[in-house]
Structure formats: structure tokens, C-alpha cells
């Protein structure tokens, strides 16, 4: 008899690994190709954003919000602005609200395009990534026109938006919407309905409804498991309620069409569908936007009345919550951020065991985390 001692192979996936979408480390224990345990390690990108929030003035903190979920900076700006505005007695002009919604939804499309493309990369398909970036580039160009930045916008700010849209910008958005709808069909054909892609993602990383609720998942992760919950409709902020009442958009929910409800394919499906829904919201705004001011009356030195406020908004990745406390001064007493990626990440430890190594990559990709936000 051979006396061979075997043990599981422990391997560090990351912090420098193409599948971890940034500097995250997953300590994977494997038995051959089979993953027997996994432990995500965070903190490589920690920049103490919340502490900075307690030390800089209200308006000065805005650029820091750009940097947690750098793929959806408009939404981050919006979340922080809404939280601060909740403490203030300020009226946001209607045109500013419209532009905010247009920017936030376009940014959602751009963010989901990255999710779409990088998930293709994780599964081994290169070409969809470049197709997705082609349209994302267009959105970034449009953002550049309105605020001068491509990634860290700081455009949506306390009181409204930084400036009005340049002439012709709204028409360009309309043109983009028309073209994007055609391109969107390409995405569906090229990757989402590809036989190999479906085989790789269906029935992989299944999150049941109960599990999704237990882990506090939000965003496409939650809706992929069949829970019909979207903050834009169920906890409305700004003019989203009005848009919902007008019937401009729907909330896509996972159906388990290709496999089991709540598998990786469902989460991907929800993201791809959401791009189209965001497009509808943008179209509604374009149809209903009016001339007017784009920023409310703000004092020269911004002092926020004492109090505390929590506002959660629907980020592309889930509920981005800002909890701000003010003592009436120029600086926040507490500026807490609830990052959706951070909360969604927790489910990995339960999902990864007893999958194959390639599935590990597929599951991490399907959570669509942005490490800048998990660590902040």
C-alpha cells in the first residue's frame, strides 16, 4: 500500500489576478479542479473615504464619492447629494432633476456595459468586451461634454447639477438612445444567448430567494434571484415615482429561464435587461425636460442644519446608502456609506465551495463587484 498524504491545495486568487476585477484576494482551497473552500480578503484599496468625509467640508467631499464605485460615479454623486439635501430645506429645480436622472441612468448603462463585457472576459469571450466598450466610450464622451470628466464626474452636486447641458447635448443623447437599442440586440445574440455561455453560467452559483434576502443582497443580485425589489420604485427618490407612474419603465426580474432561478445567468440577464429599461427612462426624460435653472439657491458657505439622514439609492450594483450626521457646521460629524458591492460580496463564501475553479471565476464575475467600493 502506498502511504500518500494528500491535502487540499491553497491558492491565492489575487490581489493581482485577472478574474478578481481589481485588487481583491480570494483564498481558494482546491482539490484538483474542485473548489472546497473560499475566503475573500478585502482592504487592498482602502482609502478611508468615510473618515475623510468627517474632515472636509460638505461640498469638498463630493469628489471622494466619485472614487468608490468608479464605474458609476454619477450615481455616487447623486446618493451623497440626496443625503445632504435631505437635511437641508432646499428645492431642486425640475430641470436639474431631469438631468440628474438622465446622467444617472446613462451611467447605469455604462456600468452595466462594463459588467457585461468583463463577464464575457471571465467566461473567455473577448469580443463582447470591445463591443460593450465601444458604446460605453460614447457615453463617456457625452459625459465629457457635459462636465469635462470621463470617469470622476463630480457633476451632480448638492443643490442640483454643476452646470446646464451644452447646446445640442440632449439631441445627442436621443441619437445615442436610437443607436444603442440596435447594439443592445447584438449583445444579446453575441453573448447572452450563446450556447456555451449559457452552459457556463446557468445553474452555476445559485442564490435562492431566501438566501438573497438573508444576505441583504440588493440590486441585480437580488432581482436575479426573483425578488422584485427596486429602490427607484419601492422607495422612490427625486422624480422616479413620477416616471414609474407614467409607465416608462419596468423592473426586470430573474426568471430561471435557462436553468435555476437565481443562477449566474439570471443575474447577467437582469443587468442586460436593465440597460434597456434605463434607456426608456432616459427617453422619458428627454421627452419631458423643460428649460429652467439647474441649481437651487445655496449660501456661499454651505452649513447643513443639525440632524441625521439616511438616503439609499439604486446604484447599478444595488443600494448605495449614505448616512450623514450634521451638527449644523461646515463639516459632517459622520459620513457613513453603505456600499452595495461590499454587502453583495459576503455571499461568495457560501457560493464558492463545491464548484469548479472555472465556476469560481464565473460566480465572482456575476456578483459584479467594484473593489473601490468594497474597500472605500
Amino acid at each position, binding site marked *: 500500500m502506498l502511504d500518500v498524504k494528500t491535502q487540499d*491545495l491553497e*491558492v491565492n486568487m489575487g490581489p493581482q*489576478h*485577472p*478574474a478578481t476585477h481589481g485588487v481583491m484576494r480570494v483564498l481558494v482551497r482546491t482539490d*484538483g*479542479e474542485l473548489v472546497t473552500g473560499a475566503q475573500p480578503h478585502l482592504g487592498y484599496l482602502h482609502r478611508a473615504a468615510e473618515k475623510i468625509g468627517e474632515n472636509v467640508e460638505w461640498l469638498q467631499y463630493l469628489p471622494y464619492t466619485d472614487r468608490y464605485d468608479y464605474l458609476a460615479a454619477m450615481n455616487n454623486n447623486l446618493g451623497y447629494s440626496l443625503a445632504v439635501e435631505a437635511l437641508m430645506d432646499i428645492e431642486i429645480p425640475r430641470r436639474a432633476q431631469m438631468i440628474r436622472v438622465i446622467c444617472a441612468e446613462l451611467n447605469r448603462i455604462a456600468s452595466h456595459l462594463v459588467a457585461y463585457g468583463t463577464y*464575457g*472576459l*471571465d*467566461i*473567455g*469571450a*473577448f*469580443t463582447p468586451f*470591445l*463591443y460593450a466598450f*465601444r458604446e460605453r466610450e460614447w457615453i463617456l464622451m457625452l459625459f465629457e461634454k457635459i462636465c469635462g470628466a470621463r470617469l470622476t464626474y463630480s457633476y451632480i452636486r448638492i443643490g442640483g447639477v454643476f452646470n446646464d447641458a451644452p447646446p445640442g447635448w440632449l439631441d445627442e443623447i436621443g441619437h445615442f438612445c436610437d443607436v444603442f437599442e440596435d447594439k443592445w440586440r447584438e449583445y444579446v445574440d*453575441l*453573448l447572452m444567448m*450563446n450556447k*456555451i*455561455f449559457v*452552459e*457556463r453560467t446557468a445553474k452555476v452559483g445559485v442564490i435562492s430567494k431566501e438566501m438573497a434576502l438573508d444576505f441583504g443582497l440588493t440590486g441585480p443580485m437580488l432581482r436575479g434571484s426573483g425578488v422584485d425589489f427596486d429602490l427607484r420604485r419601492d422607495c422612490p427618490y427625486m422624480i422616479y415615482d413620477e416616471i414609474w407612474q407614467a409607465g416608462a419603465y419596468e423592473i426586470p426580474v430573474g426568471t430561471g429561464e435557462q436553468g435555476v432561478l437565481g443562477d449566474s445567468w439570471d443575474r447577467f440577464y437582469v443587468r442586460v435587461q436593465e440597460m434597456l429599461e434605463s434607456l426608456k427612462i432616459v427617453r422619458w426624460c428627454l421627452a419631458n425636460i423643460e428649460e429652467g435653472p439647474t441649481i437651487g439657491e445655496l449660501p456661499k458657505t454651505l452649513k447643513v442644519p443639525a440632524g441625521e439622514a439616511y438616503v439609499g439609492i439604486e446604484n447599478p450594483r444595488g443600494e448605495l446608502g449614505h448616512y450623514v450626521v450634521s451638527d449644523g457646521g461646515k463639516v459632517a460629524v459622520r459620513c457613513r456609506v453603505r456600499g452595495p458591492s461590499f454587502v453583495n460580496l459576503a455571499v461568495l463564501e457560501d457560493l464558492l465551495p463545491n464548484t*469548479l*475553479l*472555472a*465556476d*469560481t*471565476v464565473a460566480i465572482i464575475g456575476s456578483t459584479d463587484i467594484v473593489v473601490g467600493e468594497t474597500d472605500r
Partner: protein
Amino acid sequence: MNNGNIFLDLLVRFAPEGTPSWLLDLSAAGVGVGILVAMVSVIAMFCVWMERKVAGHIQCRYGPMYVGGWHGWAQSIADGVKLLLKEDMIPIGADRPLFVLAPALVLGSIFAALAALPLAPGVFFADIDLGLFFILAMSSMTTIGVVMAGWASASKWTVYGAMREAAQVVAYEIPLGISLMVPLIVAGTFNLNEASALQSGWYGMHWYIFQNPFVLPAFALFFISALAETKRAPFDLPEAESELVAGFMTEYSGIRWSFFFMEEYAAMFLMSVVAAVFFLGGFESPFTSLARDVFGEQHFLASLTAGLVLLVKAFGGIFLMMWLRWTLPRVRIDQVMTMGYKYLTPLALLCVLGASIFEALWLGVA
């Protein structure tokens, strides 16, 4: 006078009287190897450039456009020079002899396999009666090099890559070999030159896929197996950069890494030529037939046409492989195994059976 090697024939013709024959053999071998290495390197470099252009155009971009002027034709040469000048790095924990040997073995065996390829009817480096056997045996040797590289690199990712390669090649060598049996049943020879010449009827369209209804499905099986054998997408699991960083070649850099890279393209060329010879008519096409009629059977231009026809067919196959790579996602290891053992192998066996029965009954060869 035909010794089965054009260089030897030429040398014998021009050498002074009394030159010992071993010297002639040695010089002929040296010249042959030199030309072979140069030819394969050029083909591999061209393939790299072609891959980048094909990928570029599939992905709505141009690919290389600057180096050399016209559509970046010199990009591969520039990259090759860069790789040559890079620092030669061997990881501290690596098994040095194996680490150094592995890329040489990989490239050497693929070169050896390419030696059996015919360049034009009657023009070849080595006219081997069991040519196909030799090619398959030699191209399987690359697997040993890959496993060696993975093990010697002393990295966990490379070991994964090596194990995947071993499992995958074992699974796909079987359907690859069996599906090649089908045209062999029709042809009755392992020799690539003879196999090609047997398809010259019907104005150059008497290809094996048209001779027997079971050769066409066998071709599909062969092509899929060849993709897996050459580690091309969707079966590029040994490299799988999104999972295994770069698989078995994670720790390699510089010119050693480029050996693996060149091997991949040389293997693609090899498999495409084998496919062309044993399924798609080899040298034969209406053009070849026409050139023979116009210039005469033995004329230089007829041979050139035949060689070009084979080259075009080979690059057609390579283009198809590139097209697939830039379109399809990667399959998972269990799906690769399932496909190899449960579908491809039985189907290939069925094709062999069908082709044999067809040959025996319809053509009365029994």
C-alpha cells in the same frame, strides 16, 4: 535519382566525386533543418500578425497599423526582436533543467512534425510512408513539454494549466486519431503525398469529403478535436487567462515564452495542413488541374500552383480557428471531458464503421 529529400538530390548532383555519403547526408540535413526552421518561423510570425488583424477586424478595430508601414506588417518582427532582447528570467524555485528544456522540446517536436509536410507534389523534407503517424506522434510530444513547463515553473497556476493540458490532450487525441481513420480508409495510405495525389480526379475536386459520405462528419469531429489539441479557444483551458492567469506559461517570459507562442501557431498550421490533405483535397483543386494541363505534369509552375493551393487551404483552416477564438466563450473542464469522451469518441467510431461499410458494400473494396 530520388532519395526522398530534394536537398540531398541537389547535393548529390553538384558534389565533387568521392565525397563521403555521410557528409552529404549531414549537409543536406543541416540545410533542410535551416530552411524548415526559417519557413515555420515566417509562417508562425505571419499567423501572429494575421491573428491580430483578424481579431481587430472582428472587434471593430484595426489591429497593428504602424510598424513597417502597410497595415503593420512588421509588427511580429518588432515583437520578436523585443522578446529576444528581454531579460532571461528563471524563477528561483523552478526546476532549472526542466524549465529550460520544456520550451525547446515543445518547439522541437512541432518542427519535427512539420518536416513530414509536403510543400508541393514531390517536394518534401522527409517522405515518410507513415507520415500521418509521424505527425500525430510528434505533435503529441508537445504535451510532454507543456506538462514539463507547468511542473518545472513551481507555481500553482502553472500546475493547474499542465494538468488541464494533460487531461484534455488525452481526451482529444483519441477522437482526433479515430476521425483521421475515416479518410485513411478511403485513401489507403498514410503518406501525405500519395494521399493528396489520390484526390486528383474530377478536375481536382475528387476530395475525400466527396468520396464517402462519412468523411464530412469525420472532418467536423477532426476539426473540433484539433482545436482542443492545439489549445485553441473554446478549448484554451491550459492557458485560460481569466482563470489561471496564463496557465502553464505563467512564469515564462522573453524568448522562452515566444517558443510556446510559436508552437501554438505552428501547431495550427500543422493541423490545418493535415485537414487539407486528408479531407479537402490537399494540392488538388480545379486550379491545380488546370495548371497541370497548361504547363505539363512536371513543370515548375504546376508545382507552384499546387503548393499555393495547399497554402490557401491551410490558411483557410487557420482563419476558421481564429474566427472561433474571437467569437466563442471558453468551455469548462468537465464540459470538455464530457464532449471528448461521451460524444466525439463514439461519433468518430461510428464514422469509421460507416465509412468501412460504405467502402465495402458500395465500392466493393472488401
